[in-house]
């Protein structure tokens, strides 16, 4: 009995080993190892390619005194403020608008959702054209708010970030809408029927039934957004390049610039580590929020 089960165990271990090894190997080489390497590099003066020397906390000292770094942190926070809540609110609004439709539902859904499917550069190229200072069609709208003058939105420090945020919402809102639709469809019809029998109006129904029952989804969307938007790079890089005069530079772009344009691998790793810690904190918040959401 004993040796036989041991043999079976050994065989299972062997099979399990064969099954997990391919992924685990890649995970170790291309994910775990780079994670530790990032930490190690951040304490060196390494260039992007080639070896460097241990320089203690020099990178971090420099970071604290680098106004562009603080600017990039501030801009990333600003972008998060401009996108997370509005994107969630629009997602919820569109979901509420879509679920009550019947015949035209799939068409309306597609209109809101299709942008999310597109590569970021298709989105930015389209909006660069729509917002072109001379010939962009959106300028007809902007001129109404600017005494008839066009606005070079991506060259204007006041306009650049809000417009990038707006483009981001246009692009990503479909994802949030989809999650909210799933959440709304999961709410039992009986609640609504009981409420309307009691004579509750739509606002009361939303306030006392939809909103509380939807909260776990809302919390999920908010935290997913928070983590995603902290990693902002693509749209900012493609639309403004961080300009004008660093007024829209974000953390990830500073990392990119220091590593790949200024050839400072060590310093860029220190910036990456800061982003890493910020996102880790956000992930922990997400975990806590979602757990309390589920416990309700």
């Amino acid at each position, binding site marked *: 009995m004993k040796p036989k089960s041991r043999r079976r165990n050994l065989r299972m271990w062997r099979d399990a080993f064969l*099954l997990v090894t391919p*992924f685990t190997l890649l995970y170790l080489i291309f994910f775990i190892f780079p994670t530790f390497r990032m930490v190690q590099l951040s304490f060196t003066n390494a260039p992007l*390619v080639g070896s460097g020397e241990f320089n203690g906390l020099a990178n971090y000292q420099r970071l604290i005194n680098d106004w562009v770094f603080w600017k990039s942190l501030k801009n990333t926070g600003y972008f998060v403020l401009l996108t997370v809540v509005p994107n969630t609110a629009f997602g919820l609004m569109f979901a509420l608008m879509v679920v009550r439709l019947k015949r035209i539902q799939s068409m309306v859904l597609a209109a809101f959702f299709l942008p999310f499917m*597109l590569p970021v*550069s298709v989105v930015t190229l389209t*909006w660069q054209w729509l917002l*072109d200072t001379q010939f962009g069609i959106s300028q007809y709208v902007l001129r109404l708010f600017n005494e008839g003058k066009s606005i070079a939105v991506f060259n204007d420090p006041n306009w650049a970030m809000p417009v990038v945020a707006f483009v981001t919402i*246009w692009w990503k809102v479909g994802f949030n809408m*989809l999650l909210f639709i799933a959440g709304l469809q999961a709410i039992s019809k009986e609640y609504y029927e009981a409420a309307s029998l009691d004579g509750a109006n739509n606002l009361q129904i939303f306030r006392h039934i939809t909103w509380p029952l939807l909260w776990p989804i809302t919390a999920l969307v908010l935290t997913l957004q928070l983590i995603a938007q902290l990693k902002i790079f693509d749209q900012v890089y493609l639309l403004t390049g961080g300009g004008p005069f660093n007024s829209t530079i974000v953390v990830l772009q500073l990392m990119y610039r220091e590593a790949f344009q200024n050839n400072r691998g060590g310093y860029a*790793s220190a910036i990456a580590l800061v982003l890493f810690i910020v996102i880790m904190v956000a992930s922990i918040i997400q975990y806590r929020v979602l757990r309390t959401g589920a416990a309700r």
Partner: protein
Amino acid sequence: MTSTSRITVPGLVGTAFTVFMAALWFFPLYWAAITSLKFEQDTLTKPPGWFPNPATLKAYGRVLWESNLLRWYFNTVFTGLVITFFVLLLCLLCAYAISQLSFPGKTLLYWALLAGFMVPGQALTVPQFILLNDLDSVNTYQGIILPQLIAPIVIIIYKQFFDGIPRDLRDSAIIDGAGEFRILFNIFLPLNWGITWALAIVTFIGAWNAFFWPFIITFSEQMMTIPVGITQVSDAFGVFYARTMAMALLAGLPVIIAYLIFQKRVTEGIMVTAGLKG
């Protein structure tokens, strides 16, 4: 039920507003499409024309034959297919072991996967680039592909689906003398074709749309994927917006078509990767 489907004035106003918002949201894509069908000089008229008049495919011709677009198509399709295939295969194997077998180190592996969610992939760009440079893989297909093979979320999803399969199924197959690989490919995989398709489509779309990593690892136009390539050429095009929009649409068309065909699978895939259902 009858009370909610009755036509009311607020209901009609709501529907009208919904249609208006949907039209507004769709407008940029409409505008990109009609711009791409205009002659270059017609894109710059004031006021702009709402329809291409006359319409022409000239911009598409120039983009297809005078840029590297076809090459980028090939690069994107090829790397996308390789990434999708290996992500699914590797995760399928790993998830099966984690879900069905007990082996030393299993808990550690599982926690390492969960911990990985807290690490933003982009923060690893510098060490990953250095690593691939050491492997002589900068500006190559394997350079684009390798880091994109790491998708622990797919393991977590497969594991959840495998956990839901009755234990007896594997036990009786074992008694019949089947090995783990046969059980996986003859029982567990066929039972989960639905989720496999959903994950495959979402992974492919993700690889197609990936911008940051291909942007970092490729530098010659010959090796770029579509999302990276089209940002390089538009600068050269300058104000030739018909061409730029034709290129943007050609880059977006495959994912839009994929969505329209596989709508349900795409939705399912997005839901499970966001952590809903499953």
